[in-house]
């Protein structure tokens, strides 16, 4: 059962991830990205990471994608015209990506744990959010505060960047 679900959601994620880079229309790319992230959130939930799955849907499919679509529509991007593709650079890009994937595949093949399946959890109903929260506000309190400052800096930076006349 979990095997079927795993391949369904991975296929959903990978097919729409491919559609992101194949589509010529930026709006279609952004909507494919939403579906791809949704498949990824389902994979997180299959891995019993409920909190991360929900955060993935809320932050990515909610906030980030709205931002992307808003910018695409603000810039009023049309379907981009076909340009002459530089064949050498295209072949170079494809071969670098394929070489990267081949290397990654070899590394995964040599990993001893890669053939083992996931061990069962101690109890089927773990209170996921509570455990993540305890760790985040306990062990990782300082990084959490720093992240807060980072988000504040990003907000101010965006406001400064989007002003018409920079002084």
């Amino acid at each position, binding site marked *: 059962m979990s095997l079927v679900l*795993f391949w369904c959601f991975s296929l959903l*994620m*990978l097919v729409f*991830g*491919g559609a*992101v*880079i194949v589509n010529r229309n*930026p709006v279609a*790319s*952004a909507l494919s*990205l939403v579906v*791809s*992230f949704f498949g*990824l959130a389902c*994979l*997180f939930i299959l*891995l*019993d*990471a409920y*909190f*991360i799955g929900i*955060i*993935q849907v809320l*932050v*990515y499919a909610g906030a*980030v994608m709205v*931002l*992307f679509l808003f*910018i695409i529509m603000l*810039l009023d991007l049309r379907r*981009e015209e076909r*340009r002459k593709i530089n064949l050498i650079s*295209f072949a*170079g890009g*494809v071969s*670098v*990506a394929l070489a*990267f*994937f081949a290397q*990654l595949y070899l590394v*995964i093949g040599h*990993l001893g744990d890669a053939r*083992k*399946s*996931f*061990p069962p*959890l*101690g109890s089927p109903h773990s209170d996921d959010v509570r455990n*993540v929260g305890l*760790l*985040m506000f306990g062990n*990782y309190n300082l*990084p959490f505060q720093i992240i807060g400052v*980072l*988000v504040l800096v*990003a*907000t101010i*930076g*965006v406001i400064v*960047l989007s002003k018409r006349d920079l002084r």
Partner: protein
Amino acid sequence: MVTLGDYLFVSGLLFTIGFAGVLLRRNIIIIFMSLELMLNAANLSLVAFSRFRIQPDGLPNYHAQVFVFFIITVAAAEVAVGLAIIVALFRARRTINVEDITTLKF
């Protein structure tokens, strides 16, 4: 049964798709989306390892999930700043094609 290698394989495939997008596309917004795909591929392998390394008390290793939470937060901040830069760039140059943005090219 689903093995750890399956998840790492899918995560590597997603990373490769994002990598190919960064290398092949000329539209700067699509390049930005491909960067997001790569970040998410890394998140997937982190969560898979978190589920694989069961603690002695039978719980997943939550340190990895906290790390993923931080990555998602930083990525969201990065998207906001990056898109603001793209808007400023578009105002100055009226283009989002990376082949037309060659001021810094030697």
